[in-house]
């Protein structure tokens, strides 16, 4: 009964079950992008097209790749009652994550690890509480991971087959249409082919991926100018972001900290010296493991490395992006530990390796236990949802249907109130940081867009800068509020 296929399948089932369990009653849109994805799905399903339909003057959605919203739009057509239909979105995300677990665990059988160990590591990586946080909201990561894992696993197959290379290209292209960072997968699998001197396969997969992505790229290029200047950083293309930030904004000393979130998961609170020593050791072991994986699964090593490199260059904090490659990092860490164990000359260094592994397991396990037993992985989403619910209730009860609301979570407000919404926080890139549009200019943009009210979720909300001095429609102490936006006639 216990065959080689069982471990990966069980990993898939366990991750699917955990992902379903991790779903919570938080609102869609609490992490901004999740609201945008669902809003885009609604626009597609209702025939508006691929536009930011929640804005007062919708324009093409050139910032977000279309595959995930398109997939959600199919589900929306089947069950159009929002927010009840969130249940099928949750199911879809959980299924994608389970599929990804199965694919990664099946692929990991190529690695020199005991099969049940690799299946366990993959499961542990995908039920880690940061991943549960991600799969608990409507992010495109699960779909992206399933597509990326499939592309990488297929490209590591030994036999030369043009059709296989085309399939790899299709999957990598679709991954790029899910998340722009999927370009790392295209590069990674090509690199994997190149290291095995499979020039034709490299060209075929890259060419196919390019063909898949090309129409989207052309569409973005054609519609990029439709994005209003004030919203370019919020809703514009990555090219517009780079043009604001400059290329120098991509490379920074923080780039080296790309794996720090993972280390914060695995290492205990120690003095800085000890902590960074542990971090260096673990990073070295991960790198060693990736190098070990190169021999048996070159696309895995190159794909994961390309992805991590891209996250490092990405002008955003790495946390959200790094978590979904946790199963691969765990596999690399295990391979690194194994390699270190094998080359260690005597007992003392081996003990150190074992102690480090045990420490990582204990610390990571304890944090996981705490998060899972207290529901901590969903705490942020629930915490943001509470004031938003008060806002939504008041907007639905007291504002006319044609009211336009400015908010830091404009997609969420639009989804749950049916009113159009605008971002209350507008900015532009300057190097790796952002500069907010000043309150007067923001006020002018909002008035121009027809905004009637500004919603504030609580102290610290960027919209606070705008509403200073406005009379509140209502304002809860240390909580949300709604202000009428005064605009001259």
């Amino acid at each position, binding site marked *: 009964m216990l065959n080689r296929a069982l471990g990966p399948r069980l990993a898939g089932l366990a991750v699917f079950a955990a992902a379903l369990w991790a779903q919570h009653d938080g609102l869609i849109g609490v992490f901004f992008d999740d609201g945008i994805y669902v809003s885009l799905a609604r626009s597609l399903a209702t025939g508006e097209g691929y536009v930011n339909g929640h804005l007062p003057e919708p324009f093409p959605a050139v910032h977000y790749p279309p595959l995930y919203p398109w997939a959600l739009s199919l589900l929306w057509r089947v069950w159009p009652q929002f927010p009840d239909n969130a249940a099928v979105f949750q199911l879809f995300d959980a299924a994608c994550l389970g599929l990804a677990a199965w694919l990664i665990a099946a692929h990991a059988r190529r690695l020199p690890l005991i099969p049940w160990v690799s299946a366990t590591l993959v499961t542990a990586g995908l039920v880690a509480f940061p991943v549960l946080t991600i799969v608990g909201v409507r992010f495109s990561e699960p779909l992206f991971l399933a597509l990326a894992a499939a592309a990488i696993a297929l490209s590591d197959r030994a036999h030369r087959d043009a059709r296989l290379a085309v399939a790899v290209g299709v999957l990598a292209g679709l991954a790029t249409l899910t998340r722009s960072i999927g370009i790392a997968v295209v590069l990674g699998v090509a690199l994997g082919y190149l290291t095995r001197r499979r020039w034709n396969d490299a060209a075929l997969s890259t060419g196919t991926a390019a063909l898949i992505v090309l129409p989207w790229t052309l569409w973005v290029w054609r519609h990029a100018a439709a994005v209003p200047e004030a919203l370019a950083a919020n809703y514009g293309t990555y090219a517009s972001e780079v043009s604001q930030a400059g290329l120098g904004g991509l490379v920074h000393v923080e780039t080296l900290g790309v794996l720090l979130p993972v280390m914060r998961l695995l290492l205990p609170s120690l003095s800085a010296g000890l902590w960074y020593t542990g971090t260096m050791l673990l990073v070295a072991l991960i790198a060693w493991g990736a190098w070990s994986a190169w021999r048996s699964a070159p696309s895995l090593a190159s794909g994961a490395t390309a992805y991590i490199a891209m996250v490092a260059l990405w002008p955003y904090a790495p946390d959200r992006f790094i978590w979904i490659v946790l199963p691969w990092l765990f596999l690399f860490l295990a391979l690194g530990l194994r390699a270190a164990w094998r080359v260690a000359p005597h007992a003392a260094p081996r003990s150190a390796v074992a102690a480090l592994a045990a420490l990582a397991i204990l610390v990571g396990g304890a944090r996981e236990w705490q998060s899972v037993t207290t529901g901590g992985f969903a705490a942020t989403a629930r915490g943001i949802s509470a004031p938003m619910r008060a806002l939504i209730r008041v907007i639905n*009860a007291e504002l006319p249907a044609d009211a336009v609301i400015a908010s830091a979570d404009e997609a969420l407000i639009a989804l749950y109130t049916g009113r159009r919404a605008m971002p209350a926080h507008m900015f532009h890139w300057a190097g790796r940081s952002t500069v907010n549009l000043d309150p007067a200019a923001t006020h002018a943009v909002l008035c121009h867009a027809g905004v009637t009210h500004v919603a504030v979720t609580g102290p610290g909300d960027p919209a606070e800068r705008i509403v200073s001095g406005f009379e509140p429609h209502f304002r809860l102490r240390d909580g949300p509020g709604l202000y009428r936006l005064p605009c001259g006639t």
Partner: protein
Amino acid sequence: MRNLTVGRAAWMAAAVALVVYLPSLANSWALDDISVIERNARVHGIGAALEAFFAPYWPPVGDGSPGLYRPLIILSYAVDWTLSGGAPWFSHLMNVLWHAAATALVVLVAAAWLGGPALLVVGVVFALHPVHVEAVANVVGRAELMATVLVLGAMLAARRGRDGVAVVLVAAALLTKESAIVALPLIWLDTWLGRRSQRPGLSLALGVVSLAWLHLWHAIAGAMVLDGVAAPLRNLGAGERLATMLPIVLEVVRLLTWPFTLAADYNPQMIVPTTMLTWAGALGVAVVTALLGLALALRRTAPAVTCGIVGGAIAWGPTANVLAPTGILLAERTLYLPSIAVALVTGVIAARVLERFPGQGRLALAGALLLAGAWTVRVETRIPFWRDSRTVVIEDYLEHPENYRAHVRVGFVYAQTGDTVRALREYLWAAELYPLDAVVTVQAGGAAMATGDTAIALREARRGWTLAPGDPVIAERLSATLAWAGDTSAAIAAAAAGRARRAGVGPLEARYLELRRARGVDPWWEALLVARIAWLAGRARAAVEQLDAAAAQMPGDPTRDSCEDLREGAELARNLQTQGAGRLAAAARLACSGN
């Protein structure tokens, strides 16, 4: 007969099922048929049923519906309605056809271990078992029939290596009735008994389907999944539920083996619920142990017996109230699939008798005919019981006066017809038979108010509050009764206590405000209460205006009994940062200073 093929046995058994239940076509809608089919717009067209595919099973009533999710069964009723224009006979005919299909599939399942006449015995026993009457002759019983057909179909598909078909059938079964969750363990059992190797791929696929369905069910039915738990099971832990259910095992065995005494449902005092281990419970343990021991012992020599007993136990599992409480202690319809145990065991006995006594075929046939005849008579006499709601209510009342629910149903009918005196009598009778159902106190209290019996109305309202102190409906009713009885102070106190237990429940808040108004509440106080209701409804501006009005009209020396309302108002004013928040806070401190 010796040359009887499997297919022919299946067809013959199905034909018996069809013929025996044809009289049910004379039945109309009964009990739940009314709300689920006759008055449910969702089943009056296929389009409507498809639109409601992601809606709970029960039509919406009040704030929500009990937590069931069965979209395929709703769709099947919609198909009936579309084809027949809502004629009950057609829906009954469909039920009979589903029963015939289930009977044929039972024969096919048994064909793995039995052959010839024994197979026909299996099919005929299943076709004629009187415990099936509720499921077949009452249209909403179709959920059992369809789920059984789909689960048995999945077992057969898995047996033949058609994993994809099995997965689709299980998914359909789950969307038909929750009890189909037993499909996977039944397939494991069948594979084990057939000495085939388990297929992890199929198990995992069925696991995924089951998890996905559980997620949808929970998302659609939400917090209502465990609503509507049978009164004797409310607030019981798993151990107490087990102790409650063990004596009921004996009744299940009785219904499966001697199904001549039947009932619409099984409640106190037909069954005496207890959370202690009693002699009946001990006997229940002994019966379960003996049956499982027998099943295990015969797994090689008579796997059909093992399949029947273990499969029947698994099939009864979801409604056995041990893993999770359900809305029933016991119902005959839920024994539809478990009754496969009787069919298979009888089939094995028939096969052994025919083997041992080859020359006694006629005697065996006579015995079989006697049993079949007796069961047929019971089925035919039972089918009219489900003719319509009136018949069910009256007949069940006459047959089982010890069933407290029978009195509740009759009381309800009297109340509907305006005969509140008789309604009250029946409710009180029900409460005497089973005094722990808080819902009955609401009904009895309402009837007592209608008859003008203050003492009984108050007694029942207070009893309800004792039984379900956190229930806002009970609190609202208690408050209403007290107000009706002229004790406004007590009514206000009851509503306030209910609000304290469960804040933010609309009717209770409205009742409280109404009572305060009736008492001639000061305008500032009324404004506080209106502000609270406005805020709960999302009308923030109105809440602020009312709070400011309250603060402006506030007397310098608020009375002590305004303490709680002032405290709540002051807190809301502080949160909403109203102009008079400070004044309200000071007033609250003053009013509450002596408390």
